[in-house]
């Protein structure tokens, strides 16, 4: 041990020994899971305050759980957004499509078509339903697990797959890790990969919108694990200081790779309760309840649009799969967790709701799932015509040096020349016929 002052302990005083608490999840691989400690209030039991209310009146909402869909698969209480059946079916369709997309892309990675993929299984409502509650031109600053937003906003699926394959059709020119999409046209900010950086950026965008007297708001998504980043504190501080028209969505899916939410402070309080200290409106929401997700996001959007202030929403959900294709969750958590999760599965719950209100049936669900899978399969084939990762159909070499700056400075020009020389040395007979682009 390094040199340090001796302190009083050496003098033999009788103060108790301190001990360090290192959080530990309740269940590890092989453990029997019992989630009875999770308080699941009845659907419809949470009050719905006025959208312009004082955050101080919302203490209960930050510790409780906004729920709409009950055990009876019916919608309950003041948070019921009362969506028409067509809208509900559209929501279900986007969620089913997101799930089908994830299945296919995950498989594609396992087949060696790309390096990396991340599913959002079990969390579809937190992006699809939330996104549906926003206007199409509201600006979103997502994290890496909100593919549901792009699907909901009608971003062409082939663009998503081209990006995942980093092929010659990838409009990000093969520069970004798979799933780090960007689409200005869809008011979808470029995904970073560094965690929580997008949260204060969303606040800045919202501030700009307010500065300009615009009517568009911003929304950002961040995992519960990354709320530990300083950027999240920056976001909350700037949001409250400038009363920015922004929604801070925290996706509490319980796990950050292998670290459970306790390492972000979940043993002590809720993530929605972070809002209280900042004077932000705070809502804690059943993230597997598509109607509650929609209603909460809509509440926050209305609040922001009326200049009534920012909202922090915690979507309480469960990451049903691994963090990404690069980790095996059976190595750090009990497989029973997914089955025992007390809030169920968001797709099943919405489906059952539609059936319960007489607007859907198993047959149509089966057909929809099949069509979604077929659609993804078809678009995947189209994308594969543009190449898959590592098979040569990438962007031309020179594009590597573009967009570092608006104009190419001399030092990058010299390095670009070097890269071209290296390619010519490697392929002195000219480029191989199959696909390599100059």
């Amino acid at each position, binding site marked *: 041990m390094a040199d340090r002052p001796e302190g009083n302990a050496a003098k033999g005083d009788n103060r108790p020994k301190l001990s360090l608490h290192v959080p530990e999840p309740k269940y590890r691989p092989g453990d029997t899971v019992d989630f009875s400690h999770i308080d699941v209030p009845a659907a419809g039991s949470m009050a719905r305050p006025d959208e312009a209310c004082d955050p101080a009146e919302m203490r209960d909402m930050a510790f409780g759980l906004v729920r709409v869909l009950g055990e009876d698969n019916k919608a309950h209480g003041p948070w019921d957004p009362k969506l028409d059946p067509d809208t509900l079916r559209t929501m279900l369709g986007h969620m089913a499509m997101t799930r089908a997309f994830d299945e296919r892309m995950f498989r594609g990675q396992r087949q060696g078509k790309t390096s990396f993929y991340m599913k959002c299984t079990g969390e579809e409502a937190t992006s699809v339903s939330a996104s549906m509650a926003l206007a199409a031109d509201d600006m979103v600053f997502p994290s890496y697990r909100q593919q549901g937003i792009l699907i909901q906003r009608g971003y062409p699926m082939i663009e998503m797959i081209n990006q995942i394959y980093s092929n010659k059709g990838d*409009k990000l020119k093969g520069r970004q890790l798979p799933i780090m999409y*960007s689409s200005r046209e869809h008011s979808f900010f470029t995904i970073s990969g560094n965690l929580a950086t997008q949260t*204060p950026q969303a606040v800045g965008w919202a501030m700009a919108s307010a500065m300009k007297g615009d009517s568009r708001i911003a929304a950002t998504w961040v995992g519960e694990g990354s709320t530990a980043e*300083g950027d999240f*504190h920056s976001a909350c*501080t*700037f949001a409250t200081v400038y009363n920015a028209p922004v929604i801070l969505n925290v996706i509490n899916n319980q796990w950050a790779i292998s670290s459970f939410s306790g390492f972000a402070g979940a043993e002590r309080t809720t993530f929605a309760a972070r809002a209280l200290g900042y004077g932000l409106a705070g809502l804690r929401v059943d993230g597997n309840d598509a109607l509650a997700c929609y209603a909460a996001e809509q509440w926050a959007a209305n609040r922001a649009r009326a200049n009534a202030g920012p909202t922090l929403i915690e979507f309480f959900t469960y990451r049903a799969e691994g963090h990404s294709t690069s980790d095996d969750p059976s190595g750090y958590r009990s497989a029973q967790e997914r089955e025992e999760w007390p809030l169920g599965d968001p797709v099943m719950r919405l489906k059952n709701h539609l059936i319960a209100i007489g607007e859907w049936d198993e047959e149509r669900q089966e057909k929809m799932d099949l069509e979604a899978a077929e659609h993804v399969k078809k678009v995947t084939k189209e994308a594969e015509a543009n190449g898959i990762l590592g098979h040569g159909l990438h962007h031309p070499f020179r594009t590597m040096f573009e967009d570092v700056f608006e104009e190419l400075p001399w030092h990058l020009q010299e390095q670009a020349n070097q890269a071209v020389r290296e390619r010519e040395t490697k392929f002195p007979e000219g480029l191989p016929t199959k696909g390599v682009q100059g």
Partner: protein
Amino acid sequence: MSETATQDAPATESATERRLNMIEAINDALDVSMGRDEDVVVMGEDVGYFGGVFRCTAGLQEKYGKTRVFDTPINECGIIAVAVGMGAYGLRPVPEIQFADYIYPGLDQLISEAARLRYRSAGEYIAPMTVRSPFGGGIFGGQTHSQSPEAIFTHVSGLKTVIPATPYDAKGLLISCIEDNDPVIFFEPKRIYNGPFSGYYDKPVQPWKKFDASVVPEGYYKIPLGKARQVTEGEQLTILAYGTMVHVVEAVCREKGVEADILDLRTLVPLDIEAIEASVERTGRCLIVHEATRTSGFGAELSALVTERCFYHLEAPVERVTGFDTPYPHSLEWAYFPGPIRIGEAIDKILKD
């Protein structure tokens, strides 16, 4: 380059032109830019009502209103991050970091975000921001108000780094930076805010108005990024410097009677390599001077470039004069500062053979 060659010469007559110190010139650049483009916004700690701890933003809030010039929380990460978001919206933010020493909490937002936005989105999103920050020592700022961290930023692909050495340049360069569509780090050498510095801390400071480089035209003008300024012309050696050190090396050369080709680099990225090569090829000797710590400082890059590109013209090894690899000490700041003795010794060594 040569049209501004006499800027550092003492004023010869009582010119009627407007003379400004560097603070006033920076304020003027902000004013001109804000007047021309309503998307230009200024923010930072104490920049609003108070006008900045160095007064660079004085009067701007009164003139342009609180939504375009405003104070921020003490949160450099947040300042840079919201500037990224504002840039994505379409504004041209000019955030101020009160001291360059405070910029580190914002590094991830600068390095991983602002600098990469254009690249990672293939041009869909850009970060047209200019981060202004006073840097450098010589004002008894101690280790947290004296640093010169420029090499941290020149090492990052996607960032431009600009450092003015005169009021005239400060205005023209800052307007260029604000109009630039890439993120720019604009370091203001605070030791020479009020007047150029000879390196002799025990001699009285001469105010800028006694020097022609303080003649700052009204209204709009730009100095292009990536173009060095020829400070003095000489055949004995080339001296590469920027910021405060431009004036110190000029004073040392004058004192020693050395005829040096002094280049004020003005922009570190992109660098005016043509001017450097042309000068070193002519003189055959090169001294590099910066105030920042030595190891992995920007002088190392300059030394490597000169050696790689001008080796067969060199008649002596390239020399570097820098701050020491220690924190900037408060009471011993002039022992740290690369002053006339350190520079003089290096010149003697280069000219020896």
